[in-house]
């Protein structure tokens, strides 16, 4: 009989892959067909986001099988799921209202808040996880990964900034900081695993 932990890891990897393929595949189809340029085009992106639900369920099953599940991690997953849908809705709504229209700067600033607030909720969820996690080893692992992510973000931002200064690379919107940090968090967990933390 197959090891349940390995089976759970495979299922989690499958849903993780399905989510990525779903998001990028839908974005590519919408862009190539011109649907993404439509005011309502972004709403279609909510459909592949539904794959987040089985992905998180599979991830929690994997955590249980590999012995690293905790109530704090479960709360973190739920909060991130809600914030992710709020982010997609906020971004879609902001683009829909902003699309092709000239709006006053205070209104534009309010529109910018729509996708920002759910990201603030994600940052809050990450902070709450570290506060609420009672398992000190799991907490130390996450803090280690967060330090790697922060270091990586600072390094990438500094290098990219100078590339921009010297005209080598284009400007990148500041909101890219959060996805870069999240990639760094994944790298941090991987580094921790390789180093045996």
């Amino acid at each position, binding site marked *: 009989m197959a090891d349940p932990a390995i089976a759970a890891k495979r299922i989690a990897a499958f849903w993780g892959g399905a989510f990525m393929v779903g998001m990028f595949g839908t974005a590519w189809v919408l862009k190539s067909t011109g649907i993404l340029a439509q005011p309502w085009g972004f709403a279609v992106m909510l459909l592949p986001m539904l794959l987040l639900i089985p992905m998180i369920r599979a991830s929690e099953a994997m955590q249980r099988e*590999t*012995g*690293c*599940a*905790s109530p704090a991690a479960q709360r973190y997953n739920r909060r991130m799921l809600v914030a992710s849908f709020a982010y997609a809705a906020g971004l879609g709504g902001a683009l829909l209202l902003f699309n092709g229209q000239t709006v006053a700067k205070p209104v534009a600033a309010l529109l910018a808040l729509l996708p920002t607030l759910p990201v603030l909720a994600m940052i809050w969820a990450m902070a709450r996880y570290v506060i609420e996690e*009672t*398992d*000190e*080893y*799991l907490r*130390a692992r996450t803090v280690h990964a967060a330090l790697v992510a922060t270091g990586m973000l600072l390094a990438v931002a500094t290098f990219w900034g100078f590339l921009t200064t010297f005209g080598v690379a284009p400007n990148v919107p500041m909101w890219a900081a959060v996805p870069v940090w999240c990639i760094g968090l994944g790298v941090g967990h991987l580094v921790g695993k390789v180093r*045996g*933390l």
Partner: protein
Amino acid sequence: MRNRLKVLRAERDWSQQDLAERLEVSRQSVNAIETGKYDPSLPLAFRIADLFGLSIEEIFLRD
């Protein structure tokens, strides 16, 4: 830091999961402490010592 957790656990016929449940930590925590990948905090070390009815120095050994 070395420790005698694996031996103490085996003497009681406890699995890592059994010990994790008694300590109210994850199984990965027990594994990380047992294999020396992670040194527990003083409060957790006291909880481990209390569970086995030993002193910390009888479980955790200097390198």
